[in-house]
């Protein structure tokens, strides 16, 4: 860290905090009211907190997956597509398989994880066979995933919504049966603790233990830090990286299933069901410096921005400005955290 480091990060944070306020003031709004709305909408009451926690679950899953692959030295930036593929597979399983009740939910989550894991693993395969860069192929496959989902929901013999008489069928699937949905944990007045969050937290802790305490995690870490030394130590580096990538994809896919099956969505597969959770989840992992446990609070932070941002848009702040505010605030969080240590992307 250079001498200028603390000043620079302070400057970035200040700019990122002040600029949104300025923008809002210039357009005739009140920055303090906006800030209040941001907090009100994310933490203000039970409904708001419920909303924040709903967002936190898929963010957490994506981020934990990103930690896995980054630790093994594989840089996956295709989570957005993997979320979509997960949602697609989850919807297909939920709508097509005749599994009774809660077991169906398990099937939906598993199908999503398997499909997205396999989708991500394709990148590892291409890398193994032809040396195709993984960061790049996962990015490109995101755009493919978008079209695959678009195709599925506009094709009647796939997942397109059943038509109602003469009316147009929208590009979406039918609604998932109630057995496939993620319910609430416990009964709290106003507060909704979705099962999805429990899944996310449990997965984060499992992965943290797996990475730091098991042979598998050790081998994965060695492969990521020094592939040559890993190979010498008898670790099949390419296979380990492939598995880590698949796990990362699988968790992103599971995030897709959580989006699909939780009250965040209408429980239908839609082309934009991923709502940038994949991109944001990646940012969460980067801010948390690839530590699975650290992703829990960071995902919470990003969820606050999302829920609060949604609320802010409803107060009359032009919605595009809300996006700007969110981007700047994220920068404020990212800048100093990433600066503290060498950037994780190698």
């Amino acid at each position, binding site marked *: 860290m250079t001498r200028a480091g603390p000043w620079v990060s302070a400057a970035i944070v200040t700019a990122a905090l002040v600029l949104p306020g300025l923008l809002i003031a210039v357009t005739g709004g009140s920055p303090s009211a906006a800030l209040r709305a941001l907090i009100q909408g994310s933490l203000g009451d039970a409904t708001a907190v419920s909303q924040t926690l709903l967002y936190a679950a898929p963010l957490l899953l994506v981020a934990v997956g990103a930690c896995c692959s980054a630790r093994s030295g594989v840089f996956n930036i295709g989570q957005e597509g993997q979320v979509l593929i997960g949602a697609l597979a989850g919807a297909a399983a939920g709508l097509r398989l005749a599994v009774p009740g809660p077991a169906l939910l398990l099937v939906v989550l598993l199908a999503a994880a398997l499909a997205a894991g396999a989708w991500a693993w394709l990148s590892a395969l291409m890398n193994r066979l032809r040396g195709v860069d993984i960061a790049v192929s996962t990015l490109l496959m995101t755009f493919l995933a978008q079209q695959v989902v678009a195709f599925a929901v506009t094709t009647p013999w796939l997942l397109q919504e059943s038509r109602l008489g003469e009316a147009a069928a929208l590009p979406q699937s039918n609604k998932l049966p109630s057995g496939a949905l993620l319910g609430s944990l416990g009964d709290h007045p106003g507060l909704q603790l979705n099962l999805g969050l429990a899944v996310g937290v449990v997965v984060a802790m499992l992965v943290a233990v797996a990475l730091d*305490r*098991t*042979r*598998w995690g*050790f*081998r994965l*870490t*060695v492969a990521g*830090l*020094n592939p*040559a*030394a*890993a*190979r*010498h*130590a*008898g*670790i*099949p*580096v390419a296979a380990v990286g492939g598995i880590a990538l698949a796990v990362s994809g699988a968790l992103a896919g599971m995030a897709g299933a959580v989006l699909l099956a939780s009250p965040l969505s209408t429980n239908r597969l839609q082309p934009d069901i991923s709502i940038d959770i994949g991109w944001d989840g990646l940012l969460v992992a980067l801010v948390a410096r690839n530590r699975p446990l650290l992703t829990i609070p960071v995902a919470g932070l990003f969820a606050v921005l999302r829920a609060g941002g949604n609320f802010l848009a409803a107060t009359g702040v032009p919605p595009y400005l809300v996006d700007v505010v969110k981007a700047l605030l994220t920068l404020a969080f990212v800048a100093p955290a990433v600066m503290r240590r060498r950037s994780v992307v190698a």
Partner: protein
Amino acid sequence: MAPEPAVRLRGITKRYGAVVACDGVDLTLERGEIHGLLGENGAGKSTLMRILLGLETQDSGAIDRDGRAVTIAGPREAAALGISMVHQHFSLVDPLTVWENVALGRSGPVRRAAERAGVRAAAQRYGLAIDPDARVGTLSAGERQRVELLKCLRRDPTVLIMDEPTSVLTRSESAELFTVLRRVVAAEHRAVVLISHKLAEITTATDRVTVMRAGRVVLRRATTATTEAELAREMVGREVTLGAAVGVLPHATAPASPAASAQTALRLRGLTARPGLDDLCLTVHAGEIVGLYGAEGNGQKSLGDVLSGLTVPDAGTVEVAGASVDLRRPGALSAAGLGIVPEDRHHAGVVLDLSVAENLVMTRLGDVSGRVFIDRRRLRRRARALADEYGITAASLDSPLRDLSGGNQQRVVLARELSGRPRVLVAAQPSRGLDVGAVEDLYARLRRCASDGIAVLLISTELEEILALTTRIATIFRGRIVGELPTAQADGERLALLTGGVA
């Protein structure tokens, strides 16, 4: 009035956190001299030179150039002042050609024809034959060293710094280099700083010598007024068993030659790997040390990669204790009982960001874990035992390996590889970059291995090392074994002939 020295460093101090890399160092470089700079690993030699080159800024102290105080902000400014350096690590860009790398250190528009011609002319003048259009990535270590030197000389420096230039060169290549340096100094009146761990080189090639220990200058002498023994003592700060420290007394001790049992521990059959190995065959018996000698770039690296499990050969087999090893299976060699101290330990030997303890158990994870979980307590206990046994000094076994000195890092590798009780130990250039004290320790351990019945294959470009340690020498040329003879019958001349591929 006597002419001002080319460079005078006055009271240079540089701290990295708690470490004082340089502590009030004074150094004077005269024109027309080769100045030797000696010191253990971590003594601060490189740091001092990096300060002179503007790559680091000193905390205190001053630099005079031809009697004028200067501040040097970076390599460009240093070059403008006529100071240029051949680095210990990293300074060539592999995908670029030789002439592009040479041009990289200069300024002004790039005139391709002129640059090429310039490289050719300089190569001619200093006797450093090289093809300007070759890609640097395809060159051997010796050739790369030539490019480094050309890159440096093309800037026409009056002060030339060479940081361990010979560590990857064979003896004849080193000799060539010193001839060039001598010419540069005598005919062109430049000043040269030569950093080396090889005492013999320092005593033969330099005019004056400075020894550093723990950041301070401890000896300053005309070379003719000192001895290798004195230099070694000053570097380490105690008496050194000269017999082990090769380079001090080349033929001091005949190797303890155990009656090599007839049992074959390692057999390499027809190993072929493109590029590098061409039908290489070699056997090593239990309890003997076999030296594989040859100029850098004749396939030693490929052999090391095959035996580390990094590359799978195109053809050929490796047998350990009579059983053929499936080289495609990761870790098969280690499981079969082959330990290796790789040539580039940072590349394949250790994981710098993992803790010392983790590095110590890396290859034998099964010993410290159940089916799934790693047992931290067992891991630490085992690491502690190994660290004690092999005399590894570290602030904590939980600190990253990066914090250890080179000699200690090498000990970690050796400890780990020997902890598996291997039948065969392959040591590739094991003393490279180590100081006298560390080398002494290393040699003692290699000998102990042999007397414990382990078959040791020593891959080295250091003739003295080979002669001092081995019972049998095989010479390698262009990926083949071109000669084999008992060490007792070997002498420099015969080996030189063999390594030239004449046999």
